[in-house]
């Protein structure tokens, strides 16, 4: 195993990430990166839910909205400090996630997808129509930004904050994946009847996955609310949910890096297209969907999987297991 090569590549990669704001003073670039990091959080939650536990969610944006609006309302109407708002946003997302998941656990894939679509749509319609609470189509304004000793966060500061959060999320997923909890998920994903025969409570497993992914989506929403300062129902439609699923699938459903790769790629792709093909706002959606389609058709395991395979080959590592560290294979072989 070419350990040194691996160290160099990873080192360079992380180094680049860390110094990015210094290299590119472009505020727009930083802003898009921040959006990407927040999307990575949601997409990673989806990878966990759909890729690991095998549960489809086509309404994930509903949880993002719950997190966002809750935090927005708590900090504006109730005047609470931002951390409380964020915690409230996450908590409510998790609770709603559990409420959706608990009765749905026995539904097979297609039916579950319908329930989640319905859920997402219901949330959207509530956002638009409960004007007294959510401000309707006008939305919520004057949501307080995060502040450091009195001054609002700059894009750079948000960048580092989000970077830390993404790192924590990935670390959490890493630990869960390479443990008995990860094994339970993958087992339920592959064959939930057989999993039950191995004393695994598939309901608890699915509900746990739903709750966790909902919480992550809520976290992302809450952070968005404070970074952007206002909220409207616009970014919480069905197609935005579909977009998050696309991120997870394009990134690689069974990969830890799936959320990262997919979130990054599908946040930047439309932006780059929008820049290159200026003036035709409609075109970029078109090209975006075509590119995603192509990836799906030719690389259904996702870009992250191909990346992972390529890298493993680069440093001569054998890929042995989904939930076990490769180092153990030396004993087994």
């Amino acid at each position, binding site marked *: 195993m070419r350990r040194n090569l691996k160290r160099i590549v990873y080192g360079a990669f992380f180094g680049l990430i860390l110094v990015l704001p210094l290299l590119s003073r472009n505020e727009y670039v930083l802003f898009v990166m921040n959006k990407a990091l927040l999307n990575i959080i949601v997409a990673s939650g989806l990878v966990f839910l759909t890729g690991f536990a095998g549960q489809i969610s086509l309404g994930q944006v509903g949880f993002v909205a719950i997190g966002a609006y809750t935090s927005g309302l708590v900090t504006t109407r109730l005047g609470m400090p931002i951390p409380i708002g964020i915690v409230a946003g996450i908590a409510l997302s998790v609770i709603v996630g559990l409420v959706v998941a608990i009765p749905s656990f026995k539904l097979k894939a297609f039916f579950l997808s319908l329930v989640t679509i319905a859920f997402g749509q219901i949330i959207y319609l509530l956002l638009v129509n409960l004007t007294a609470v959510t401000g309707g189509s006008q939305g919520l304004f004057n949501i307080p930004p995060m502040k450091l000793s009195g001054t609002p966060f700059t894009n750079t500061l948000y960048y580092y904050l989000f970077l830390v959060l993404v790192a924590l999320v990935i670390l959490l997923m890493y630990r869960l994946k390479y443990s008995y909890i990860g*094994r339970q998920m993958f087992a339920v994903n592959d064959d939930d009847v057989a999993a039950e*025969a191995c004393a695994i409570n598939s309901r608890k497993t699915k509900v746990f996955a739903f709750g966790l992914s909902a919480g992550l989506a809520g976290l992302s929403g809450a952070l968005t609310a404070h970074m952007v300062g206002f909220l409207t129902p616009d970014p919480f439609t069905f197609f935005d949910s579909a977009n998050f699923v696309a991120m997870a699938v394009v990134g690689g459903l069974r990969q830890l890096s799936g959320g990262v790769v997919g979130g990054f790629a599908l946040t930047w792709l439309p932006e780059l297209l929008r820049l290159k093909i200026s003036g035709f706002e409609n075109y970029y959606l078109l090209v975006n969907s075509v590119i995603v389609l192509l990836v799906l058709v030719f690389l259904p395991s996702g870009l992250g999987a191909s990346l992972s395979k390529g890298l493993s080959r680069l440093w001569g590592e054998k890929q042995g297991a989904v*939930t076990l560290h490769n180092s153990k294979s030396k004993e087994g072989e």
Partner: protein
Amino acid sequence: MANILETKALTKRFGGIVANHGINLAIEQGKTTGLIGPNGSGKTTFINQISGIFPPTSGSILFRGEDISRKPACEIASMGIARTFQRIQLFNHLNVVENVLVSRCKFMSASALDVALGTAKVRHEEKDQFDKAVEFLGIVGLDGDAWKLPSSLPYGKRRALEIARALALEPSLLLLDEPAAGMTKEEFVQILGIMDILKERKVTMLLVEHTMEFIRRAVDWVYVLNFGEVIAQGPFEEVEKDKAVITAYLGDEE
């Protein structure tokens, strides 16, 4: 010797079809009990009720004296009844040792929080369970294949893996649903070997089988089902001479 499992008047109806009717069956601890019968006689329905896949329409299932007829499958498995499936149902995205490790999840006491924090407790437990899983693979002769994917294994080894996975649950009762089905001659010998090891370890088993050779060598007591009812029971040598049994199997050569 005590009966580890008993069914009393076990009946299962699907719409208009009576798959199991009034079955009284007892499984003695430490022994291997066989369940045979022509196709469609209700053997798999019987096992499915015991393992909790669906509840009986009427009657009861007593496991160590406790009624488990309405309990869900994962609870029954947790209480100590493990099974294999007629069509091998392995976790295809997990490798061989991971498949076995799935059964070992039950023995993990570390909580989700432990896992999230990556505590020493979790690391120790994971290592212990990994070693245990390899042991179980050793019992069925798969320890050299630990890192392979199930899809790359020959049929006989996949069946062995399913048995290892069920064994890893450390069950008091092991239900085997047609383990010898579709085996080549060599695979048949291998699986008989596994049965011998299991019997040596005094694993209590309920064996549903079609292959009479297998039943003959493996079981201590056998029940014969036909059209959902028990038509005969006893040691195999007696049962195979029973008139009702022969009639039931007429045209159903093995």
